[in-house]
């Protein structure tokens, strides 16, 4: 492991995410699966980090642990001074609501709701005043250029539009952290670029810390400031993406 010293080149500020010997094991029948097996890393506020690895490398599991969707078997994840392992289920839900915004490969919009309603949903959970919600939802949709489609259902939209709506939803509660799990996985390269431009824009203009899981090295090199390689639940390499040296072990 190479992470004893802070290596982040664009350390704009304090440490936003720090994991210490993070493990997530689970049983599947007789076998013990070590999805995450002793990962220690630090991500600074405002960084754009890509988690790279093949499927089964544990990159999504790490993201879920950072997102507070899952709890570590051992070790710790501390996000903005919150030790997630020590939070109650209730506190964890609050954390997901206010600190984290998430986008997924399959967009995960609720099909029975219009875009506006989907984007508004986190505001309902946050118990934001009813009168303010429509404006906030419209603003968020304007930011991703979907104000014209706010009363459409997700099934009436293209994949790129759906992912933009998902981004709007992720931003609605003004989180400091944007976690993206293969955000371009279901999109063609053109719309994928569109989405990634938008994510970079949020990173630069809103100062959001971005952690993106991907298996596309090219995408990571183009957008991320740092690339963290995982394999078999272990941290393989951690490098800035700007010099882009040819590392053969990145993708299998």
């Amino acid at each position, binding site marked *: 492991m190479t992470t004893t010293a802070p290596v982040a080149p664009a350390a704009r500020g304090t440490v936003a995410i720090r994991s210490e010997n993070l493990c997530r094991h689970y049983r599947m029948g007789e076998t013990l699966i070590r999805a995450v097996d002793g990962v220690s890393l630090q991500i600074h506020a405002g960084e754009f980090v890509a988690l790279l690895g093949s499927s089964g490398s544990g990159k999504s599991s790490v993201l*879920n642990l950072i*997102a507070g*969707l*899952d709890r570590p078997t051992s070790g710790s994840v501390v996000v903005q001074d919150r030790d997630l392992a020590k939070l109650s*289920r*209730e506190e964890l*839900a*609050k954390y*997901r*609501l*206010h600190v*984290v915004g*998430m986008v*997924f490969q*399959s967009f*995960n*919009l*609720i099909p*029975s*709701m219009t875009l506006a309603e989907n984007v508004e*949903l*986190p505001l*309902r*959970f*946050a*118990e934001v005043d*009813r009168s303010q919600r429509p404006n906030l939802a419209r603003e968020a949709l304007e930011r991703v250029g979907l104000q014209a489609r706010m009363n459409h259902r997700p099934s009436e939209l293209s994949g790129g539009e759906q992912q933009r709506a998902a981004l709007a*939803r*992720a931003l609605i*509660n003004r989180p400091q952290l944007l976690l993206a799990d293969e955000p371009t996985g279901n999109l063609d390269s053109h719309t994928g670029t569109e989405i990634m431009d938008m994510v970079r824009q949020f990173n630069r203009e809103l100062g959001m810390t971005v952690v993106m899981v991907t298996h596309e090295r090219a995408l990571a090199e183009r957008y991320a400031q740092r690339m963290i390689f995982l394999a078999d639940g272990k941290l393989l390499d951690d490098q800035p993406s700007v010099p882009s040296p040819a590392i053969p072990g990145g993708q299998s």
Partner: protein
Amino acid sequence: MKLPDLTELALRNLRESVLRNSLTTIGISVGVASLVAMLSLGTGLQQLFSQRLAKSGLFDTVFVSSRRDLRGMGREEERKGPTPGESRVLDEAARQEIERLPHVTEAYPDIRFVTELRYDDKPHLTMISALPMSAKSNDAFDGMQGGFFSSDTGAEVILQKSFAEELLGKTPPLGAADPSVAELAKPLLGKELTMRYAQRQSAPASPSPQSSQSSLRAAEATPADDRVAAAAYSVVSREQKLTIVGISDLDPESMRGPMRARVFLPLRLAESLHVMQPTDLREISRAAADQPVYSSVSVRVKNPAEVQVVEDAIKKMGFNTFSILDASNSLRQVFRVLFAFLGIFGSLALTVASIGIVNTLVMAILERRREIGIMKAIGASDADVKKLFFAEAGAMGILGGIVGVVLGWAIGQIINFGTNLWLKSQSLPTEHFWAVPLWLVVFSIVFSLLVSLVSGLYPAARAARLDPVQALRYE
């Protein structure tokens, strides 16, 4: 999440699988409808009975008799208190005293005597009873032809049906159909009867020695020595012409108290006649001639609930009392049991319906697994998810409750209508034995809501426990 949001989302989710949720809701409505039908039948029957009983005048009446009336000697309460010989006389003063008691509307003497009525120059011997004007509302006169007495002192008379038959010489042979009251009334209404009766008159100046001796013996116990001299009277035969104003179809055998007679007179008229009564002989030793002694007094109480209080007060005055309060208490008990039974049977259907709710919601969890995962991922807490499923269960409960109440009411109306149709075909009077009071409506909807929420407990807890990572994993 706040309630308006919960409601909104719950209704939206219910609309999403409209068929399944409607079927479940219909299940609840049928359950609630059966509950409403059962309980409204119970309520209706109870109302019908208590109306009937209230109208019969039995449940708000206390019958008062003197302890000197020895007929009830065996009863335990009468062994306490003064001996019959020492107890009070039920005279006009006592009647007025009773009438002044709180909660009492009126106290009137039961004047009853057997005498002869002449109609068409033929004598007819019968039992005559005097009625106060308040008896007009008694259900005994529901099926009456003609009208009630025009005044309390009018020289008028109401005949019982069987006596009317007798007057007309139309008494049907046993088992044959009775002629209708209207048929009997036609030739009789407005006609005149002559009543021959024995009138009691004040005694001449010197009482017979025999009677004064017997009064002296009784007077030893009482200080009212001066009344002794007056306690003598003579009996004179008199006649009174009476106009027939009404024919009642009530069956004297089924009635109690003053209703148990075949001919009725207005009370004040009967009093003014000073008819010699059987008790006069018994009380001859005590009463003054001009102050009649009553065999019994009927006391009407404002509200059946106050009968006990009034009864106790009268007992304290030293009289015997009787009311049908005990009977009404056990009747109430019967209705409570009936209610419980009907309620249990009605709830059974609702229990089945509640299993339907559990089923529907568990299915919804499986179907909306991903949606629950999404909601959790974007910040919904366990409590939010739980509340959402609760709200869905509750919404189905309230909707089912409302539809069920309407349905139950409709079923009741239809059955009531059908039964009345049948009653009519049997030429019986129609009845309203189906009642859906407001409390039943509110109770049914609240009960349906509670049952639904209880049904939602397990699915809601299960949905809340769902692991978001697992829920989102499946594509």
